């Protein structure tokens, strides 16, 4: 797809087009010489650099959802906590939500700063084996808005992947903003050399959310990103007083279950809506440690186990996810 700079002349064919620098619209453009030389068409050197950097990272998992507020960050944080529960597993969590980073809050790291070392930026450590990186650590106040357009966000993501001193890792979890846009394309593109194990897709049961999630699945298919499975969040609500279950977000079209059957994707699990999850996120604690015997924690553990199995079984490089993940 053509890559058109923000300030390009009208009818710019795009820097990666065959016609770059040669089309009639390119006459008089200050970058015409660069475009016609073919230099911009070469792959971004960062892809190779990132591949080198990521050679010490065993598994890379992207957490996606088309819809906002369905619990991507909550899930990413708990996946990181659960994987890091085993002390021999090195886990890192990267937050590429540039405009609304919530990982620092959920991990209880608000106000932390990133330090620079000889080998790059040092991530912030929650535990010895759990590193976190987010743009939230680079802001002077949590109220600061990052009002950036796409290209600047892409530059930041490139730096996160290339310039952060991740060290030896078993798992790198990437938490994304909602949508199918700059951040997602960048992550997939920059990690294309290193290879992503797969994507976990988060949804809530109602159709308004599922319709955006179907778009996200279509995106994964377009960019050939294997899907580990779908997690349905906020499935049902158990009243803390009377213990009755109610559906806050009614699955009018069969919920994630139906969607997964239709698209033949594995449904990793259905996490009930528990007010304690939200509370522990607000306080920056792990729900899995706070209330380990709750039904929601059990579902989380099962989901984490199937993701572990998926990664351990060695995803096939041709992009076919294993079917035995349920």
């Amino acid at each position, binding site marked *: 797809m053509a890559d058109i700079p923000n300030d390009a002349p009208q009818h710019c064919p795009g820097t990666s087009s065959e016609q770059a620098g040669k089309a009639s619209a390119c006459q008089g453009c200050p970058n015409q010489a660069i475009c016609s030389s073919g230099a911009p068409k070469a792959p971004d050197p960062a892809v190779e650099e990132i591949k080198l950097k990521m050679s010490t990272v065993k598994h890379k998992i992207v957490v996606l959802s088309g819809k906002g507020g*369905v619990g991507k960050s909550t899930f990413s944080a708990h996946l990181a906590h659960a994987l890091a529960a085993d002390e021999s597993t090195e886990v890192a969590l990267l937050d590429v939500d540039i405009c609304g980073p919530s990982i620092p809050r959920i991990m209880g790291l608000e106000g932390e700063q990133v330090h620079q070392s000889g080998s790059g930026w040092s991530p912030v450590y929650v535990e010895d084996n759990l590193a976190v990186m987010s743009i939230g650590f680079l802001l002077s106040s949590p109220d600061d808005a990052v009002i950036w357009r796409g290209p600047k966000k892409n530059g930041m993501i490139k730096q996160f992947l290339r310039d952060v001193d991740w060290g030896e890792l078993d798992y790198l979890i990437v938490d994304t903003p*909602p949508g199918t846009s700059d951040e997602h394309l960048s992550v997939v593109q920059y990690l294309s050399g290193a290879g992503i194990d797969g994507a976990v897709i988060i949804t809530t049961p109602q159709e308004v959310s599922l319709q955006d999630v179907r*778009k*996200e699945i279509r995106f994964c298919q377009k960019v050939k990103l294997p899907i580990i499975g779908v997690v349905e969040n906020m499935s049902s609500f158990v009243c803390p007083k009377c213990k009755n279950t109610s559906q806050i977000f009614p699955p*009018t079209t069969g919920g994630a279950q139906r969607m997964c059957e239709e698209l033949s994707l594995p449904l990793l699990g259905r996490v009930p809506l528990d007010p304690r999850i*939200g509370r522990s996120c607000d306080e920056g604690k792990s729900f899995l440690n706070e209330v380990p015997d709750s039904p929601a924690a059990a579902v989380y553990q099962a989901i984490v186990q199937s993701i572990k199995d998926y990664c351990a079984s060695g995803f096939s490089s041709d992009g076919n996810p294993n079917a035995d993940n349920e």
Partner: protein
Amino acid sequence: MLGRSVGAGLFPTRMLEVPVQAAHREVITADLQWWIVHGAVATNRHVAHIDPTRARECLFCDRGNLEKVGHVVLVLSGKGGVGKSTITTELALALLHAGKKVGVLDVDLCGPSIPRMLGVSNREVHQCDAGWVPVCVGRLSLMSIAFLLDDPDDAIVWRGPKKTALIGQFVSDVAWGELDVLLVDTPPGTSDEHLAVLENLKKHRVDGAAVSTGDVRREITFCKKTGVKILGIVENMSGFVCPHCTECTSIFSKGGGEELAKLTGSKFLGSVPLDPLLSASVEEGRDFLQAFPESATYSSIRDIADTLLTSLEH
């Protein structure tokens, strides 16, 4: 007259400048190409279906498409899933029931949800001389990218500049006609879409932003930096009333909206409880305000709409 209007209005003016001859085909930028493919097919399909009265109405509309729009209100939130689209939909309906002419512009390109919430997901956009004719839902006009997609599951995998271009067209090439209020529903964040909307609306005036709570401290900073007046803050999903025992649980923390409004010196417009009836009617595209006039949610939405109207008129 109809024939002429259809011919001339095949593409909005900007597209007519695009050379489509085979020799120049590569000149067409990627997004215009998309339009030519999808837009032309759609247009050809509809040439026969353009309603003559609508087409004539459009001929009489003013060229400046937003000239007859009284107020433009943005609905913003930094956080996703806090109910921006739900609040936009319900506010639009409430304003409509208050006798106002309302338009809704959905600039969430990657996940448009308003069409479904209003039960018009499979309608299509028509063309006329003044530009694109928004889809009418009763007396409400609506424009969203969902109307331009052939398959509702299609993903718009676009980077910023393309989104900016389309939003520019949404603002300038849609024939809104005469409206009292135009509500603009945005995607979460503070990025391309938001800047694009503001830039394009700069020629007209933005009356301000209603913000739903969530991660809104950043959104408030955004408004301050870009000089948009904050009309007020709406707190959504402020508690869940268990239908079995009527115990109200605050699923997400409560009272933050009011506190925030005080802290930032903006108006607190009201709070909307988490109501399964509301989510169900949004799912099915029914008018919640007509279906459940007795519910507490109804009165809170109406109050918010009233407060909004008063602050717009003063």
